[in-house]
């Protein structure tokens, strides 16, 4: 009941006038109570989620899991750990971000600094929006078509001339499309927050537009670039559909060729998300304890990225332009 009296006890910054106005109608009070309830429910949900995985994680995470590879088996002791999936997660997100960051920054710079002809700018904007709305499973199927084609076939494993289009290259390239919209929108936001007099000051010193962008604007927008990169990486790490389709679904690294790093990149493997999917009761592995442990590690990575985003946004807020 105390919730219903909140508007009276918490009148906000306009206290004197609010005190004089008539009391809120019942329907408004109920509405506010619902808003409070849902807000607290959100916090409770996140808390419960983190706590649940923390408990399961403490129960099931063993140091040995990080050091051993998955192996076929039917018991928790026989199936090994998730060394390769974890390395796979890092590898695949590194590839994806290595592609998404330069392209994303380029597109964002073009959209915010050049943007001519205007028709192309509009098309580009809706393209980015469309990519953000495209289901990742569709991106995955498109990736199969791309990397099966003779032109890109050399990037993935093949046997007797048949290219399967499945490799770390393929998965990373398609995952970069998942991260791209986030990078573009964040970098663009950061660039557009820089007032024009900063640009004009640079032009007055005789700098070209490109030099201004590279030496003045992008360094100033670095926190936004960082935010975009981390949000993108979060999405990439969490994606499962593209991994299931494009990484070939072999739990350990299955190398293709003999050149050390290239063979891994051309070969197939898995990531933590796929490992969780595989070991869930609905998957083929069905080792719940392993699924919990991997999910815990995954959640910790995501949490760390979130904290990083928090720090980055706080830093970008500290940097205020006087206009």
């Amino acid at each position, binding site marked *: 009941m105390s919730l219903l009296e909140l508007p009276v006890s918490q009148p906000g910054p306009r206290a004197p006038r609010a005190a004089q106005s008539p009391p809120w109608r019942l329907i408004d009070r109920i509405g*506010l109570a619902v808003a409070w309830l849902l807000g607290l429910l959100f916090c409770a949900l996140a808390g419960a989620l983190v706590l649940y995985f923390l408990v399961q994680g403490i129960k099931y995470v063993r140091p040995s899991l990080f050091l051993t590879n998955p192996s076929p088996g039917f018991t928790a002791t026989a199936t090994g750990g998730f060394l390769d999936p974890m390395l796979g997660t890092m590898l695949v997100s590194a590839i994806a971000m290595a592609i998404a960051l330069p392209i994303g920054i380029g597109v964002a710079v073009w959209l915010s600094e050049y943007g001519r002809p205007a028709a192309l700018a509009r098309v580009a904007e809706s393209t980015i929006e469309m990519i953000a709305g495209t289901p990742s499973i569709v991106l995955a199927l498109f990736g199969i078509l791309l990397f099966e084609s003779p032109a890109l076939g050399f990037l993935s494993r093949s046997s007797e001339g048949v290219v399967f289009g499945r490799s770390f290259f393929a998965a990373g390239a398609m995952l970069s499309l998942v991260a791209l919209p986030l990078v573009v929108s964040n970098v663009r936001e950061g660039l557009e927050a820089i007032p024009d007099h900063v640009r004009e000051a640079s032009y007055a010193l005789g700098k070209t537009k490109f030099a201004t962008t590279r030496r003045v604007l992008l360094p100033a927008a670095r926190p936004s670039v960082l935010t975009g990169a981390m949000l993108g990486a979060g999405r990439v790490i969490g994606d499962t559909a593209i991994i299931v389709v494009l990484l070939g679904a072999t739990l350990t690294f299955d190398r293709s060729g003999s050149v050390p790093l290239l063979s891994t990149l051309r070969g197939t493997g898995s990531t933590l998300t796929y490992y969780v999917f595989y070991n869930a009761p609905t998957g083929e592995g069905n080792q719940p304890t392993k699924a919990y442990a991997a999910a815990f590690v995954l959640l910790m990575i995501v949490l760390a990225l979130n904290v990083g985003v928090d720090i980055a946004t706080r830093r970008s807020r500290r940097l205020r332009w006087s206009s």
Partner: protein
Amino acid sequence: MVEEFRLDTEPTRDSDRRAELMLGALVCLVVVLLLGMFAFVLYQAWPSFSHNGLSWFGSRGNVDSQIQAIFNSGTSLGHEVYAFHGWPLIWGTALVVGGAVTIAFVCSLFVAVFIVEFAPDALCRVLEPVVRLLASVPSVIYGLVGVFVLVPLIGNHLITQGSKASVQGIITLNGYSLLAGVAILTVMVAPVMVAIFSDGLRAVPRGWIEASLGLGINKWRTVWKIGVRTARPAIVAGTVLATARALGEAVMLSMVCGVVSFAPNPADGWIFFVEPTRPLASTIIAFIDDLSTPPMRHTLYAIAAVLLLSAALLSFGGWAAKQPMKRYGART
């Protein structure tokens, strides 16, 4: 005139022109990639659509046995079977996405209003990271929670033996259900909505809110009549993005919604909510290993094409819905 002014303030050199062209080319490349995706996917999907016509979207027979027949025909060259009637999958997708987006929309609107206007500062500082965290938790983790917590809960406590017996022989009610899918999908898409809604609400000119408060209208009404109404473009944008996310969710739904392609029937009474279903995206995941047989491949690409076109339609719908709102000076 405008061009002259630009040249005055922006020094241009040959290298600069080259940089602009290169960035422009990069943008064109991304645009071409998207167009290429439409072309490639539709091209691969065409055999399935052309064999079935509009009945692709209809309902006839059992989809699962049709898919099985399609798969089996892959080995016999020249006798490919393409008969596919995807209504149960489409209906399942519509139910799950529609249910989750509707619930999430209402909740998110309340939460966004709460965060922007009513929450005390301390709670705000907690809520914002919480929303971001919930939005970035991988879908497979949500799926795991669903499988370990929600599905047993529904299977053991919500479904009675009597209702299990009443549909025996057609489907098994074991907790993998529409309800589990909707519940978890709601939690997944709501944070996306909240983030975009609250950005929109924050962009509402403060003066408009203050003017309404000055007229003696209480804060709750002001926020809904002025704030939410002004932020409508952002609300549309958030809903579109969240719906697209829900539409494409494959892995989580394939974990909690069950493995049979059953179309939940509202006429079944409350059992409707606990009936299993399998949306379009999960169907692709379920049969992804059979991608190498040509008829199966075309069928899966046809499903992907339907998803892609719905996402495009959704984008366009959002754009169209925003057009009349632009007149009111509201920002996205």
